[in-house]
């Protein structure tokens, strides 16, 4: 066996160099903006015309005109059969307690189910329209429940939030509403 000098010292450091490259790449991956959705093409567009019958006995239905009365508000797409919709109920209640007006659209739902859902999770909505065939939902570029839109006073969509509202999202929605006021 020979005790010759190691042939190429630098090759021994090659694995480490490769690994450091990997770490750098992954760090980028972790902290890049978490934007992976197909962005809604409806932001900045006016709401389409629609008229929805009332989905609950104690709230009026919803038309486009109701959403263009000069006051910015949230438009929440929900359904009684949707589990995450129950999760976001406390956040909607908190937003309502701040004096924010929230209109609701119930997707493919029955009146008694909606009533039961609101009785259980609270009713933060000033108006609730029943969208039995997802027409309005698709018309405003939403493809799932729950989703929440920020609508300005002229009935223009200013922001779309996909998925349930979690506590950390409240500040962002408040901010977007403020922008919509200007």
């Amino acid at each position: 066996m020979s005790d010759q000098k190691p042939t190429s010292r630098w090759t021994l450091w090659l694995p480490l160099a490769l690994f450091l490259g990997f770490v750098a790449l992954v760090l980028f991956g972790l902290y890049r903006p978490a934007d992976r959705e197909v962005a809604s093409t409806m932001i900045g567009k006016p709401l389409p015309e629609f008229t929805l019958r009332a989905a609950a006995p104690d709230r009026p239905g919803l038309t486009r005109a109701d959403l263009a009365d000069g006051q910015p508000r949230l438009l929440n797409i929900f359904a009684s059969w949707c589990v995450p919709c129950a999760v976001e109920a406390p956040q909607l209640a908190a937003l309502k307690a701040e004096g924010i007006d929230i209109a609701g659209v119930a997707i493919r739902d029955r009146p008694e189910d909606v009533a039961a859902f609101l009785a259980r999770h609270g009713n933060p909505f000033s108006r609730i329209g029943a969208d039995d065939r997802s027409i309005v939902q698709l018309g405003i570029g939403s493809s799932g429940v729950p989703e929440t839109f920020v609508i300005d006073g002229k009935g223009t969509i200013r922001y779309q939030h996909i998925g349930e509202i979690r506590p950390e999202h409240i500040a962002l929605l408040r901010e977007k509403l403020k922008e919509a006021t200007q």
Partner: protein
Amino acid sequence: MSLTPMKAKHQRLVLALIALVALIGAGLLAAWALRSQASFFYLPAEYAANPPEAGRPVRLGGMVEKGSIRTLADGVTITFVIHDDKARVPVTFKGIVPDLFVEGSGAVAEGRRQPDGTFRADNVLAKHDENYVPREMKDMTSEQARQAIEETK
């Protein structure tokens, strides 16, 4: 040991070099293959402005235009239009689409551009399929969870 070709003292050097050459070769090959085989993601506007070569695998993501889904007579081929606010791309697909693939929602089509400019999809994915699945239970309080369960029964 006079019979072995590796008589020289440098067997380790030779081995290291062979390994290095093979691995660098693999790296170069990978880089070359990725340039030609990785499928790029296109939005309709990008697709229209700077179309990919015909026959190269790409993915096209956008919204499914309302009223655009048509099923052909064979019952398994569909055509639809994927669009964004700047451009629209006609797509044909032969196969079974996911249930959540509906007009007006987001979709990603994997496939190739045809010489006539249309897009032939090998696979169609509906966006948001899993959006609500992994996370929704995660931050529920126990009370919400109980109610959620009650409703799902």
